[in-house]
């Protein structure tokens, strides 16, 4: 099944403080391959499998297109974790 919450999220030092408090809600970006992971996320919907709303799925034509620079940009903008699934 599509792993919805990444096992490891990259921790940036200034994030750690936020994480120490209990109400920390990470924003997680999931870069998903159109052919498999995105379809799996769709199926999770059809099956009404529940997961937290702070995971946002973005479709890529192939998970091979996930670009390191793109991922770093995402962290720069304050995303707390990135999941590449394909």
């Amino acid at each position, binding site marked *: 099944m599509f792993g919805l919450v990444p096992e490891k999220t990259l921790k940036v030092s200034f994030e750690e403080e936020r994480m120490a408090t209990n109400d920390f809600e990470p924003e997680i970006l999931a870069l998903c391959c159109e052919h498999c992971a995105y379809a799996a996320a*769709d199926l*999770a*919907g059809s099956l009404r*499998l*529940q997961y937290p709303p702070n995971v*946002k799925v973005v479709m890529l*034509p192939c998970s091979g297109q996930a670009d390191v620079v*793109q991922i770093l*940009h995402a962290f720069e903008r304050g995303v707390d974790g990135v999941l590449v699934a394909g």
Partner: protein
Amino acid sequence: MWIAGQWRGRRGLSPPFLEQRENCEELFTNVQSKARAHQIVDYVLYGQEGQTMDGNNTLSVHPDVIGAVMVVGGGIGGIQASLDLAEAGFKVYLVEGKSAIGGHMAQLDKTFPTNDCAMCTISPKLVETGRHLNIDILTDAEVLGVEGEAGNFTVTLRRKPRYIDVDKCTGCGECVDVCPVIIPARFNVFEEGLVERRAMYRLYPQAVPNAYVIDKLGISPCRDACPIHQRAQGYIALIREGRFKEALRVIKEDNPFPGICGRICNHRCEDACNRGLIDEPVAIAALKRFVTDMVYKQPREPVPRAERTRPERVAIIGAGPCGLTAARDLVRKGYGVTVFEALPVAGGMLRVGVPEYRLPSWIIEREIQDILDEGVELKLNHRVEDLDSLFEQGFDAVLIAVGAHVGKKLPIPGADLEGVLLNTIFLREVRLGEPPKLGKKVMVLGGGNVAIDVARTAVRLGVPEVHLACLESREKMPAHPWEIEHAEAEGVILHPGRAFKRILDDGNGHVAGVECEEVAFMEFDAEGRLHLETVPGSEHVIECDTVIFSVGQAAGLAFIPEDSGVGITSRGTVAVNPNTLAATRPGVFAAGDSVTGTAFVVEGIAAGHQAAESIDRYLRGEELEPRPKPELPVVKLTPEEVRDKLERGEIVRQPRVPMPALDVEARRRTFAEVELGYNEELARKEAARCLACGHCSECLSCWYTCGTGAIDHDMVERVEKLNVGAIILAPGFQPYDAHLAEELGFGRYPNVVTSLQFERLLSASGPTFGHVRRPSDHERPRKIAFLQCIGSRDQEHDYCSSVCCMYATKQAIMACEHEPDTQVKVFIMDMRAFSKGYLEYYRRAQEKYGIEYVRCRISGLMENPQTHNLILRYVSTDGVEGSKVRKFEGSSGAEQEPETLNLEPGTIVEEEFDLVVLSVGMEMSEEVRQLGHNLGIELDGYGFCRSLPFDPVRTTRPGIYACGPFVEPKDIPETVVEASGAATCAEVLLAPARGTLVREKEYPPERDVSGEEPRVGVFICHCGSNIAGFLDVEAVEEYAKTLPYVVHAERNLYTCSQDSIEHITEVIKEHNLNRVVVASCTPLTHEPLFQDSLRMAGLNPYLFEMANIRNQCSWVHSHDWEGATKKAKSLVRMAVARAARLEPLYKVEVPVQKAALVLGGGVAGMTAALSLAEQGFPVHLVEREGELGGNLRHIYIAVEDRGSGMEADPQAYLRELVERVEEEPLITVHLNTELVEHSGYRGNFTSRLRTLNGEGFVEEFQVRHGVTIVATGGQEYRGNEYLYGEDPRVLTGQEFEALLAAAAGRGARPPQERSSLALADWRVAPPQEVVMILCVGPAEKYCSRICCTTALKQAIKLKELNPDARITVLYRDIRTYGFKERLYTEAREKGVLFMRYDDEHRPQVELVTRNTQHETRNGQELRVRAWEPTFGRWMEFHPDLLVLSNPVVPSEGAKELATLLKVSRDLDGFFLEAHVKLRPVDFATDGIYLAGLAHYPKFIGEAVVQARAAAARAATILSRDTLSVGGIVAQVDASKCTACLTCVRVCPYGVPRINHELKGVGGIAGAAEIEVAQCRGCGICVAECPDKAIQLMHYTDVEMEAKIGALLELPEPVPA
């Protein structure tokens, strides 16, 4: 047989072409002359110069040939055939018996040997098929018959009703949520009976068509028996669910008076109820009454007024049940309706004829008020004096529904005395509160229900003594028995069987008694006349002081004068046409008791409905006679079905819940209701007794809920005819019914499941969400056993199902993947891992996952009743090490505790497993046999299709082709290959009509939006309540309006419904939008649909973005309204941010070189070449050797004819094939030729060929072609194993075959040198002892697929030539898959010996000196030693011949060719297809295809089919004039490129190359170039490029960063 040849003859292949042939090749190499070349090709194809092939129906086509194909069966085979045909320019009708396509593949979890998700691989194909403009998917359809001949068939289809309009259904699923009917699991075909489902269902979540279906078997008997067809099953289902308001809603659809009918109806429904067959009928009427009581207890909600849509007005005379029903129906139809009632109260007989204790007035008033609310005008105290005045008042039609209120007296003396009353008047006066004065002894005359009412009313009025006398005997009284019983209980004294002579006078003109006679015999004849005989001398007097006649009623028709034009019958009723209820005067109708005489209330209501429909037709000016309605079957259960349901436990005997009633004493004193009605608990209990006979209960909940009006419960089965040119049958298989293998306990032991059930247990979308749980206790199984060959290779099945070994291995691996500590044992006979990559997969299962394969066929199993574990007993042939087993020692063995034992081979052991999976084989269903019969094609005894030898896709009827397991059991890739192969056959047949029936959508010209400020429109979908029910759609809309560039935002109930799609186009135009965002569901299925709206509005389709707020918000955060709303806003924000930066993309049309290059002149190459040439495409056939034929030249004995009953000679087939190739003018054969250069892309390749001509000179030339087919074959391995090459008695299989052929006198060619030596020996002394060794050399690494069968065929041939020969076959596994199993059986029957060996005990071959008669020229003889595991010792053989089954290896030069073509090979050197399951003949590079041994070893027939498949794939390109390229592709900015080669290395398709003519960074020569036509748009190069020199269009950095940036950022300020 060669129909293609026939039409080729017709089209007149003519000398002019042959003259031009030389030129043609030249022309094709010259771009400028392309147009001329096309003209020539057109001429060849269509016989007339100057016509084009652009598909605009300008082709001159033989009028008889239809450019459409019917594909029967929507599994993966049917899907592939449909796509190939539709892409190649043919119209396709895809016929599927179920409600969606996908077949068995859609049920699978994973596929072997890649472990790809089955749904992920098939789903894109499903969507593509569903959306294809030229594929019509006909679901729920069955082929009844076919007429005509190849090229022009008329097919008759039966379409089962789906009750859902597929075009309107958006698949939102709201209907499922309200469906109250749960269907037993065994009807859930897709989930293999593991879980129940609703009557409303979709086969599976990704089903195509994405529409629901209603499981309705027919009409339930209760509905059928009811005059108004009340949907009783529907409201009962809703009552069971506690949904009382909804229950009343559906009741009121058919019946405006449910509270009344629930009390006084004669409920024929209950007489018809199937439950009566088991115990007692369901108390349907009481349940109806319960619902009204429940709802009417609540404060009344006013009923909305019906909309007045028609100008006409209707007058209805009489406010009884009939008149009021008609009035309600007519206002609902939009008419103005006025009801005239003479009495001061409405309700007719209900109100003034039925006593209060049976029918309280408040119910009547309430139900009438509901009708009046809808807009019916009621005029009380308004007696209509004449009809003319009504018409004068402006009424357009009149309905007479005055009832029968006039009581009748018998014409006997004394009938006019004081104290003689009439029933109607009596009851009316009581109901109106002015009861007449009665005496102390009342006599009621009459035996009907009304008479009983009268008597019981008299009791309640305090009359001390009430008598009732009637003509009929007690048994024959017309009143209901329960009514009579009630009356007696209340003290009414009955006098049945009396004839009334006269009423006695007390002398004062008052009643004193009735003089009666006893009746001896009475009967009414057909005309209604009474025949009466009385007992002579039986006259007697019953004393009384009041007599009430209750012997019948008549209509009061005083207002109809004789000259009104309305006829009256002799019985005093209005004369009407019974079909239309029209009276003799136009515009006047009559219904109810005034037409029929007194009847039950439900009949009055029925008449009201009928009258309303008739009046509607009259007012619309339509034909008055109703059109006959096709009707659904009535679901009557047979006693067998009842027994079956009882046995399955689907029904439990349970008597009817009794109705509470008022006690007798209380009844006598009051007019309160006698029957008290059910309470909620009793009602739900009683409702649960309903058998749901029709499955769908017709409760109409779905109909009320559906927002798109897709539901139509009135659909009926229909028969259609379609005209097609060819038919492809892909009906698939049915798994063997494991119930039949009783010894294995399926159906009795819960933890024995079939392999398909296990597949569903593994599947993430299955009933356990992918957690394997055993059925008995939902615990996870730790030990699983797979039993192979269930329904294969047994007494009833002489074939192997081909797929079970591999799927069991896959399932075992997946079980271990889910839970790594799972222990799996697979009980097999032979491991049939015979295809590409299978052996490696099998090895991995053992080595990586520790799956054990036990060579034993399990003959039965037992269950441990405590644990529901299963106990297997088997022979441990290979020894069991460290397993928890019991040693079996007689029947007491089961008592021992299992222990860890190390056992010797051959020990019988018992072992317990948590779960047993039965690997069921393939069978043909009864439906498939019927299909074969209907189509007039031959099937074998098992129902498989008989096909021609070497040509498995051709059935015995020309023009009808077959593919998939229907031909022979096979797996997915082979089915896909056959499907494409069958498609080619149809294409060849129908080539003249290509493009005649396809259509293309036309769009307006595109608007240039460059330079425009983004103007984004956002459309947010409610998806019924799928989205709106779980998040605040309105808030999302408001939020969207605040986002930058958004100029319009709106919400739609269903954004994907047809009207919404058109609406989006309108809104784009109206607001001048240049970007569109739809926030709804998934782009994977819906993006193309919305892009279409953009194109229709003149916008580029790439200016579109979706926010998936259903699958990613509402459905997955359904308990978090706030969170889901917030996320939906984020997703919309992200979508808008990207949309604003999207740029239009354009595709370019590139012309296609309409010729093919086929490499390899063997059977595959020749077949591919012919398949294309016969469709009219020129072919260059390149063969390295000096003659055509390839490996087929070495095959003399066929395997294809075994079991088919047809004679097949491979050499004759070869000769025919070569002849046809040589005669085919469109094929240019290049012998002694090799490919030296290959460049270009699909549609446009250029190749250089090098020929060694006859004079020994090398010549090079260039050809241009649109496609390339690789059919370069393979060759027999020649290694030095087992003394091969050292001793002439050691032969390869190919050599042995030549020898056999020569010995049998069939060798057309001289045997090769080595075999001729052996042959010389043979002539002296035929071989007496032969040993064959299978799996030689590389075959230990991969299975060469054909060797086992080939060896067996040769062994059989040798036995035929010399029955005394002793043949021993040393094997690892005998892999005679499919029908080839029959050869294995035959070989054993003929006495061939089989000995299995394994890696640890390989056969040993040596030359030994022994002084025997077998001495050879060297004085040495062959000695073969083989290990016999059961005896545990080596056996020795001294054969005359040792035959090595050497495998097929890739042909020489395969590696070089792969480099030239830039295509991949697998580890064993065979060419690698794009996808092992679904693209088995495509290379990863578009435009290059694969067939024959170059792909993998295969039999002749398999190679032929694969070659055809490659041709089908090629034809999808060659049939077009141009190809669209571009769109989402990678683009290089050369000025940033350092030509570092990173992209060249990472591209999986080998597209990027360095162009030295381009200038890179700093103007240095050389930069990467990506050919638009080849790029697949995956973007891998983009991610890897260290210079950021490559951008993927539509996913540019700017677009993606804007999107990801918008994830967190606050909205940018709107530019002022």
